[in-house]
């Protein structure tokens, strides 16, 4: 990468072996052994010895001594000291215990205690003082602090500047993933197909453990879309290839699904009228035939009505009952990306930056004021209303948004998570993210702000994960994955190794990596751009054992998730006919007639194809929806059918694992829901073992080895049959598990809050009590 974009002169020395500025240090043999573990393509840029990593806010007694390294991928703190106060660590294979990927850095603050100076370091900045302290604010809510009291002042300064420089790259191709994948291609030059990762370009669904051999469909190919059409039983829809080679639009995938009645030629013409040429994209079809479609606004005012009409007619034609189209203008109904970002900034400020005790008294109103929960609720609520349209009204739903690549991603995904149990499995959820985010052109590069210079940052993806968590919290048995999985997935957006969350569109990946390949003399063969590792290849990050934590032991799943080609899914709930095994279309609907009463307009929507107006319609729309929700909630939940969120203020909660996991004061040691998770895992594991033994017994000696193949799905394993009653809660469990606040959140303060102060820190407010009436 250095040959491509040479660093500025001030940093030239970083290309050389680290200069030995401090004799004192190099004479210390022990320090010399501290060598970083580097990935292919990773280079140490600068390093400094005798650094102290702060562990606790109020005392230095737990601080660790070691070497701080800045590479082109991460900040690494290498130490021989064991981690204090911590008996467990969930390890990322790409990162050491104390490492922070450069893309995870939010802000770098250098401090000089003696001069009482402090500076936020941007790229290419000068630092006029020698820092005594470095504070890294991370995007995943961690705050890491290093002290340089004993290190060489010049080296310390250089490392700080190097971190500032390399964590704020000027060009996409300077992100480490390029260097890494380039190295991989070079190393495997003799192989025909690039990375010999064995899963054809990192489509890995092999990651989540549990012996699942399925792969996550990436929706890069025609066949993935075709399979999805068949899986959902959608008739009237076809895969369209007009964007092959990104000839039509650079922010659409090469293949997508459109109404069968629209010819390629028409689509090409229409495409010009849409913002970003983003014509309607099919997302999903209900077993009743209603489809979920997303599209950008039609910018051509003159053509708008005509094209709109054509599109809607085509969608109606694709509906087996010729049902109408319900349009939802997301820009008008939901908070915009700037508002979501502002809420997130406040939330983060409140959760980690501000002193714990000072925020206690006004915690609830401060949390409300961030508006984060309000926005999560708004997305859930709106998605649930669209579920009603699709499921109960049998209407196809079109999501409309200016560009159709932000709010639409979130809403389209949530609707599908609620309606289709397949998307509540690990593979299904991953395929959903591929389909509605990665391929649909969610601008991960800008929204995650990997290059740290855009004002386009917005945590919509996190908001989606948070909303999914709310559903998981309300329906713990409906999801194959755990909240740990969701948190780890969020963290993975901050590791610039995976192609998944690196680009603004699939086209950008192809374009940028082709350029990079040419500049690096990499032969791409017939590949479209470099094949970056996929985040779904979880084995790159976690051991098989650690990956079992992704599995939710509460999940009541089918033995095989419903991915059988062409078969309609087995979930369907109608007012008259409640059945969990009904296949295909309910016979009552097969004649394709639905009553006029069911087609009612609503505020913020317009239904095309005007109907003769029965007079009683207008005011009953909302009450019909109320009625639908009321009835749904009054019945027992079928976990293999639609699930709807409860969205009152008392139901939408803060996702504590994600936002509090690094906060030591908020950690419940030996407690938290993980302790119930642990207990259930033991039992679930025991049931698994018993069921295998039973199978063995039944199948007889010939197949006796069959049972040995099965690996445990559970992280916590029963040590033997019948021991679930005796095994206590392991010492290392806490509400932060599998994460740990130790060394990960170290706010700067003169004197921290000792436990005693924390305990008695209750505020006295002057109350209205009458002292004479003292009980």
């Amino acid at each position: 990468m250095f040959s491509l974009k040479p660093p500025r002169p001030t940093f030239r020395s970083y290309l050389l072996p680290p200069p030995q500025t401090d004799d004192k240090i190099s004479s210390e043999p022990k320090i010399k052994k501290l060598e970083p573990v580097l990935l292919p393509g990773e280079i140490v840029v600068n390093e400094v010895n005798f650094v102290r990593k702060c562990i606790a806010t109020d005392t230095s007694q737990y601080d660790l001594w070691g070497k701080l390294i800045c590479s082109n991928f991460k900040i690494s703190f290498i130490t021989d000291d064991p981690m204090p106060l911590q008996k467990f660590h969930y390890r990322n294979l790409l990162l050491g215990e104390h490492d922070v990927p450069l893309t995870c850095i939010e802000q770098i603050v250098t401090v000089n205690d003696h001069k009482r100076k402090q500076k936020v370091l941007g790229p290419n900045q000068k630092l006029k003082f020698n820092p005594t302290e470095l504070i890294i604010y991370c995007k995943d809510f961690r705050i890491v602090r290093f002290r340089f009291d004993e290190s060489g002042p010049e080296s310390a300064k250089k490392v700080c500047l190097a971190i500032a420089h390399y964590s704020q790259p000027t060009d996409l191709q300077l992100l480490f993933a390029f260097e890494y994948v380039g190295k991989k291609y070079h190393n495997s030059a003799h192989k025909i197909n690039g990375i010999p990762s064995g899963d054809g370009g990192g489509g890995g669904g092999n990651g989540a453990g549990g012996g699942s051999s399925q792969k996550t469909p990436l929706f890069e190919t025609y066949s993935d879309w075709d399979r999805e059409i068949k899986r959902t039983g959608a008739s009237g829809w076809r895969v369209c290839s007009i964007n092959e080679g990104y000839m039509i639009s650079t922010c659409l995938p090469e293949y997508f699904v459109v109404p069968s009645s629209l010819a390629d030629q028409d689509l090409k013409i229409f495409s010009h009228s849409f913002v970003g040429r983003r014509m309607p994209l099919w997302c999903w079809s209900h077993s009743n035939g209603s489809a979920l479609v997303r599209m950008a606004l039609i910018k051509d005012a003159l053509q708008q009505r005509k094209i709109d009409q054509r599109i809607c007619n085509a969608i109606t034609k694709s509906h087996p009952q010729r049902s109408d189209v319900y349009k939802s203008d997301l820009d008008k109904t939901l908070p915009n990306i700037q508002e979501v970002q502002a809420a997130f900034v406040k939330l983060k400020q409140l959760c980690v930056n501000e002193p714990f005790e000072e925020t206690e008294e006004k915690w609830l109103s401060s949390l409300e004021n961030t508006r984060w929960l309000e926005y999560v609720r708004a997305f859930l609520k709106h998605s649930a209303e669209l579920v009603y349209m699709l499921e109960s009204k049998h209407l196809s739903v079109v999501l409309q948004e200016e560009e159709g690549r932000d709010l639409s991603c979130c809403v389209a995904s949530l609707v599908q998570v609620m309606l289709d149990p397949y998307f509540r499995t690990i593979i299904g959820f991953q395929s959903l993210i591929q389909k509605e985010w990665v391929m649909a052109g969610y601008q991960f590069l800008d929204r995650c702000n990997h290059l740290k210079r855009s004002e386009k940052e917005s945590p919509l993806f996190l908001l989606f994960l948070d909303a999914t968590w709310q559903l998981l919290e309300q329906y713990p048995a409906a999801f194959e994955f755990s909240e740990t999985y969701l948190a780890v997935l969020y963290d993975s957006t901050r590791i610039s190794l995976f192609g998944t969350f690196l680009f603004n569109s699939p086209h950008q990946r192809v374009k940028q990596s082709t350029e990079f390949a040419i500049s690096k003399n990499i032969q791409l063969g017939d590949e479209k751009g470099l094949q970056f590792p996929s985040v779904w290849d979880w084995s790159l990050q976690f051991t098989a054992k650690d990956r079992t934590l992704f599995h939710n032991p509460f999940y009541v799943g089918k033995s095989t998730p419903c991915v059988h080609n062409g078969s309609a899914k087995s979930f369907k709930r109608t007012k008259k006919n409640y059945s969990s095994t009904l296949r295909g279309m309910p016979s009552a609907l097969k004649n394709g007639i639905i009553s006029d009463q069911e087609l009612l307009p609503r505020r913020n929507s317009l239904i095309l194809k005007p109907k003769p107006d029965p007079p009683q319609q207008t005011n009953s729309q909302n009450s019909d929806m109320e009625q639908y929700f009321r009835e749904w909630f009054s019945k027992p939940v079928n976990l293999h059918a639609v699930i709807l969120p409860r969205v009152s203020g008392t139901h939408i909660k803060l996702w504590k694992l994600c936002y509090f996991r690094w906060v030591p004061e908020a950690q419940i040691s030996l407690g938290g829901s993980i302790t119930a998770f642990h207990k259930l895992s033991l039992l679930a594991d025991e049931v698994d073992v018993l069921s295998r033994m039973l199978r063995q017994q039944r199948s007889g000696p010939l197949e006796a080895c069959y049972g040995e193949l099965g690996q445990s799905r559970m992280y916590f394993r029963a040590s033997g049959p019948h021991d679930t009653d005796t095994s206590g809660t392991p010492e290392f469990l806490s509400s932060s598990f599998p994460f740990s606040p130790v060394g990960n959140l170290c706010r700067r303060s003169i004197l921290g809050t000792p436990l005693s102060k924390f305990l008695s820190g209750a505020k006295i407010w002057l109350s209205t009590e009458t002292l004479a009436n003292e009980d």
Partner: protein
Amino acid sequence: MASASTSKYNSHSLENESIKRPSRDGVNRDLPEAVPRLPGETLITDKEVIYICPFNGPIKGRVYITNYRLYLRSLETDSALILDVPLGVISRIEKMGGATSRGENSYGLDITCKDMRNLRFALKQEGHSRRDMFEILTRYAFPLAHSLPLFAFLNEEKFNVDGWTVYNPVEEYRRQGLPNHHWRITFINKCYELCDTYPALLVVPYRASDDDLRRVATFRSRNRIPVLSWIHPENKTVIVRCSQPLVGMSGKRNKDDEKYLDVIRETNKQISKLTIYDARPSVNAVANKATGGGYESDDAYHNAELFFLDIHNIHVMRESLKKVKDIVYPNVEESHWLSSLESTHWLEHIKLVLTGAIQVADKVSSGKSSVLVHCSDGWDRTAQLTSLAMLMLDSFYRSIEGFEILVQKEWISFGHKFASRIGHGDKNHTDADRSPIFLQFIDCVWQMSKQFPTAFEFNEQFLIIILDHLYSCRFGTFLFNCESARERQKVTERTVSLWSLINSNKEKFKNPFYTKEINRVLYPVASMRHLELWVNYYIRWNPRIKQQQPNPVEQRYMELLALRDEYIKRLEELQLANSAKLSDPPTSPSSPSQMMPHVQTHF
């Protein structure tokens, strides 16, 4: 999209385990026999009314009033609504509308309940039906004002276990390893002469004579002298409870009291100080001097360290709970839920109580110091602090029976004034003595059980049924203010204990995730970040808010338990069969796939 359920699935009733529910299939609907009746319960009247349900609108029904309950059954075919309200929960009955009232359903009764709900009935203006209902309800809901007995004294229920035997003080102290060479059991209060609000049996320092105790009693509010509540099994530090010292404006001292506290301190050799936790805010403690009370000053008690815990008094708590009701009933404040909740200060009070208890527990366990806890009279905040600290320190109290013993000991026997705080059978709803102190304690326990899902043998239902019968007057458990009054009324002979009901049906109240652990101290995190409003209690009447019952996670666990047992059984059968046949191939055609569906239980 306020999620909602129809009245069809909505039963506004308390638990009634020992009685048969009326059949809900409509067969017996119109027979008065279908009204549940406890042994000893008699029907007084029945009337046709309109129940104005705040969630589903007016519902025509028939109301049956017995000497124990108000029972309403819907007369509408599409609604199976049932209202089953023990008269004990009623705090106030008001007439609404007058003879000139117009408008639909504006004439009737408005009933305020102690369990976070109101009931409204509309009646016909003709025929004095409202006057009749008002008088009958008033008479039976407030029997004390009409020289009638509380229902508990009429209840003839029989259970196969006797809840009155659950708590035996001698046994409980023996379990704690008492008496030992520092602490003795004294019967000085056998006839409640030393202190009429204390139990008969007390544990005091071995070195303090009965005369010492009598002299100390003169210096402690209502003679509630420092006595032992709990002793640490290993380090032998103790939790001691009492009332405030009678220091007064002049700053009186009492050598006997000072010496007595020193004797308590000396039972623990590890630390040279005795820690005193005064539960009150310091300003309140100072203010109490005006009425003769006060706190232990540094000058008088050299070897003690005093801390104030800033917990407010019963009046503040009562007002706070009122505000909670305002934001949850009948409708939940939606637009600014969190800030509304904050403005009630309820969770903040919970935090202060828990924080205080954590400090007590931590001092005893890690600080190795004996602790003395008091507030003003030592029967409200003191009971909260000692019982919660004991729950944190001693896993025994986290079992069902252990918890019953804890309540029986620290609350009932030590004279928490249940009769005054709840107002059993009393019509004076504005009585300043009423306060939800015990509810607040149960709320704290619930908060702990949320933070430690595996640490308690009991489930949420257990806590809710305790609260329901705190008000119902069906059992004698929570009646009267102190042990001496209970003894005079022969409560254990004449009434049934709540623990009889619970212990004869324990399975229903068990937490499936319970993992029995010994000697583990539980430190909850008393932070607003973790404290939550107990929705399943405070908002349970609202069908739109009610959470899934049964708890899906618990249910899943129970299913897996059943599955495990079935597999073990089948495995044993197969092993038997295989060993009998040895080399014979299995004849059963059943395959694993036929077995699997059992795992995927559909709810």
